[in-house]
């Protein structure tokens, strides 16, 4: 049976949930939960209005950042943060490579795979600030605890993403190099490295960027760097100095962002 030519056959995209009742019940449920959720935030409007002044003072300070009166501690904190960033990124990257190789299912045997995936999960389970609190307790206040924290966090991040990239490589190239009688290390250097190099470099630069920003945050829990200086400035209500610190952080993040784009293009 064919429909008459003058009545067009209707077509609609099939809905995600076929049963109309369930579909509308789900929409209604989500909406009710959203309303209840907003209601439970218990906003104290009086406090918000009072706080607008303080927020305004903070933002106003950005218009007149004070780089000079705390320059010495800003400079010291900034150099410490940069040192923490570079040291933790270099060690984190070096340590993450063997973990990534072990965590790639297509080149690692099962026991190694589970151990390396375990290391990644452990490293990723906790936020940097929590790890920093632990290492500050272990090693005392200062940039060493911060650098160890960031290196540890780098392993989880980089090893996971690099391992996923290794799992996506072209098997043919791996097979071809293996068929020449290459050793394991030669296989890594000739078949894996060329295929993952651009992404690996991009990830390292991205992690450098993250480590710099995290280095500013974990200073607040005592792990050294510009974060400590920022924390001191805010707690003394020196918003103009705090603004100067934030502006320097923004400038450095921007510089890393632009240079990483340029570096990545040359390696593609």
């Amino acid at each position, binding site marked *: 049976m064919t429909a008459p030519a003058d009545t067009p056959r209707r077509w609609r995209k099939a809905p995600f949930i076929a049963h109309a009742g369930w579909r509308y019940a789900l929409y209604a449920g989500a909406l009710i939960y959203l309303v209840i959720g907003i209601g439970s935030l218990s906003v104290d409007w009086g406090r918000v209005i009072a706080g607008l002044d303080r927020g305004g003072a903070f933002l106003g300070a950005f218009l007149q950042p004070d780089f000079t009166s705390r320059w010495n501690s800003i400079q010291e904190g900034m150099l410490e943060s940069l040192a923490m960033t570079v040291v933790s990124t270099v060690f984190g990257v070096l340590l993450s490579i063997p973990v990534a190789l072990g965590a790639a299912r297509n080149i690692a045997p099962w026991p190694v795979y589970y151990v390396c995936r375990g290391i990644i999960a452990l490293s990723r389970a906790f936020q940097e600030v929590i790890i920093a609190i632990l290492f500050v307790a272990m090693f005392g206040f200062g940039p060493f605890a911060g650098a160890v924290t960031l290196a540890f966090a780098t392993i989880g991040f980089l090893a996971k993403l690099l391992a996923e990239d290794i799992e996506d490589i*072209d098997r*043919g*190239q791996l*097979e*071809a*190099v*293996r*068929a*020449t*009688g*290459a*050793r394991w*290390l*030669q296989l890594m*250097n*000739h*078949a894996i490295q*060329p*295929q993952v*190099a651009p992404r690996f470099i991009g990830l390292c630069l991205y992690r450098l960027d993250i480590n710099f920003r995290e280095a500013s945050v974990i200073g607040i829990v005592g792990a050294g760097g510009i974060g400590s200086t920022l924390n001191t400035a805010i707690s003394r209500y020196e918003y103009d100095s705090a603004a100067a610190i934030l502006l320097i952080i923004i400038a450095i993040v921007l510089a890393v962002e632009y240079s990483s784009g340029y570096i990545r293009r040359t390696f593609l």
Partner: protein
Amino acid sequence: MLQIEGLTMRYPTGDTALTDVDLTVEQGQVIALIGPSGAGKSTLIRCVNRLVEPSAGTIRLGGESVTALGAGALRLMRRRMGMIFQEYALVERLSVMENVLSGRLGYVGFWRSYLRRYPQEDVDEAFRLLERVGLDHMVDKRADALSGGQRQRVGIARALIQNPDILLVDEPTASLDPKTSRQIMRLILELCRERGLAAIINIHDVPLAMQFVPRIVGLRAGEVVYDGPPAALDAARLTDIYGEEDWSGTTRDDDPAEARDAAHKVAASVDAPEIQRAAGS
């Protein structure tokens, strides 16, 4: 020289790729392995250098058992088997020279290969081979900048620089146009003759196999169903290998005048000297 006995390959999924395959390849002998997709052609040559672990059976190269080797000895054995791939399998971000020299990885230590400081003899041989396959002007081009035919020539040079006893060739022409396919097949056969190399060539293209290769082995569902010269491969034999089909225009026992006409048409359209020679003969 290569002896395969009772080779059986069962994948962990339970699929049987090869069942009790016996095959002997003599020194300097080139055989074409034909058969439908999934017949086990690729699995068979990958079992020979153990990129795939066979489930049962023995493989010997020059009297030495391949199947019994441990990891280190297997690595040394793989140096004696050059492999050429369907999609060329060049390392795309490495240069032509690096790809060719990677054929020497089994012979040089890690740091030499890492620093790309290969022995001068290897570099000389790489230049000679690149000249032989007509690519000596592209030494520092990156492999992904090459055309299909050029890539396959690099793949051939990489296999030959291993100085192998046997070539394992997996669908060398499947990604190439008809003219380039013939050039590549001719090159592989010439090189085997020059060096007294044995070769197993997996190939889909039956007429191409029959034109170039003196011994054809037909594989169907993991079993050898034909082993003989191309001349004896008639429609009935092809039906054994591939199943029922109209085989006219494929085999040599068709009307010779008709076949010659068809060949002339192909030769005229591609303007390749070796095809014109083949069509004229």
